[in-house]
């Protein structure tokens, strides 16, 4: 009984960690540019595939693969911003247009991955082999590592946004573009930096997930949907709220799977999302005036 409980909690923490990494990237782009990036999940898939190619197909090892995966995702993110988002800044239908263009990017990346890497299932090796025992429950060391890495990455991101000059300038651009430009911040450069950083986070998630799940062209689809639930649940716009909501959703999902089974879980999560939106339209941790 306690073993099941601990295993479920660990599973919840794992899901929460992955969702938090995904959601923080989505949130970063949303707060800086006011764009909801539907290609975020596909960027994650792309990162995982590139990591696999470098690490497995070329045999250069996991570290080189991870670096390549994160870097390739970041580069793809910068390109998406440059080609599919930037031409529409200042357009009065920018939000709708970028929904379409980022959806297009998602389809291009997904089908491109299908063409390049084919449909055969691929998997990355775990970062660390073996198992660890947490309070009697056996967990793979790789999963335990993810649970440690995710909060560290989030802390690093928070430190970057709140104390560094560049991080602060991204927040300034998100809050008032004209004012940011008038104190000397290069706004277009801040946009491409936000997109690149967000995509790098997606790539990292892909590398971490790529050894737990099979890498397929649609690897990122389900995490993207969950990350969307998370950012809406937490209230779009703040890193802390997104991270908090990610762990709430992850934990909920783990326990729903335990109690109700895999089939009902997504429905219940969406039902909860609707309830949150009805009673707290700005999200669970959102400010009323946000």
């Amino acid at each position, binding site marked *: 009984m306690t073993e099941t409980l601990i295993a479920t909690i660990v599973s919840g923490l794992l899901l929460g960690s992955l969702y938090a990494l995904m959601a923080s990237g989505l949130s970063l782009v949303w707060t800086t540019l006011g764009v909801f990036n539907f290609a975020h999940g596909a960027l994650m898939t792309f990162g995982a595939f590139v990591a696999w190619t470098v690490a497995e197909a070329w045999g250069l090892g996991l570290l080189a693969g991870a670096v390549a995966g994160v870097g390739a995702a970041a580069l793809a993110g910068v390109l998406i911003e440059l080609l599919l988002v930037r031409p529409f800044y200042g357009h009065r239908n920018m939000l709708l247009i970028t929904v379409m263009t980022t959806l297009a990017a998602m389809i291009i990346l997904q089908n491109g991955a299908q063409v390049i890497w084919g449909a055969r299932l691929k998997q990355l090796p775990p970062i660390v082999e073996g198992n660890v025992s947490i309070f009697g429950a056996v967990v793979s060391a790789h999963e335990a590592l993810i649970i440690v890495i995710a909060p560290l990455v989030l802390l690093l991101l928070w430190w970057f946004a709140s104390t560094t*000059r560049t991080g*602060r*300038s991204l*927040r*300034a651009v998100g*809050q*008032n573009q*004209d*004012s*940011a*430009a*008038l*104190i*000397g*911040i*290069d*706004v277009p450069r801040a946009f491409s930096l936000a997109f690149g950083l967000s995509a790098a986070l997606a790539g990292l998630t892909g590398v971490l997930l790529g050894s737990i799940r099979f890498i397929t062209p649609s690897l990122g689809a389900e995490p993207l949907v969950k990350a969307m639930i998370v950012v809406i649940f937490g209230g779009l716009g703040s890193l802390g709220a997104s991270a908090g909501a990610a762990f709430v959703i992850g934990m909920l999902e783990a326990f729903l799977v335990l109690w109700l089974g895999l089939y009902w879980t997504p429905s219940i999560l969406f039902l909860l999302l609707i309830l949150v939106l009805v009673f707290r339209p700005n999200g669970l941790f959102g400010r009323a005036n946000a």
Partner: protein
Amino acid sequence: MTTSLLEASHIYAGYGEVPVLRDITVHVGAGEAVGMFGPNGHGKTTLLRTISGLLRPSNGTVHFDGDDVTIAKPSDIVGRGLVHAQQGNMLFGDMGVAETLELAAFKPRARAGAKAALERVYALFPRLAERRKQLARTLSGGERQMLSIGCALMCAPRLLLLDEPTLGLSPRLKEELAVAIGEIHESGIPLILVEQDVEFLLSLTDRLYLVEHGEVAREIDQASAPDHQEIMDMYFGTAAT
């Protein structure tokens, strides 16, 4: 071109299909304080936005310190020391006062003197010093104006564009800001001051532009200043008297 610090010549600009500025020419000499007044919606703010690079003119040129900055990026224009404090500006709502001021010294040129500039801003506006940690969106209208001017000072300005810094403020606060703006100019920073209140402008500036229908309707020199009644006539039309 000339010895002028700022020379905006024959500017045409607008928003989309709507033209706002029509062949407007203004200049600011070294050390000068220039006032700008005129009815709302006749192009004062648009002119400042064009000078600071937020808006591209469809025609005309902007020269700052001899260099053509007509199509320069706003961030580069700030880097040269041409600094624009916007009208009714709430800056960054979720940032604290001190954090905002520190960030405003963004360009390398401004960073060098950031410490001294910060002390100067706090000395000029003691209220900002009291509210260091407060978020910008919780500040009063007057405090926001102070923060906005403070930010502009943090950018190491060589010319300051102030767009209606006293808009909607009480007479007492207005007086407080007038003193501060006077001190800023006396410390050697040239400025363009946009205001509705001509008396206020006359007390702070050497020369005035009346902007109407997107052009300079009249230029008034303090030395040969017309009397109060004449300016009122210009502003409101003779029918108002």
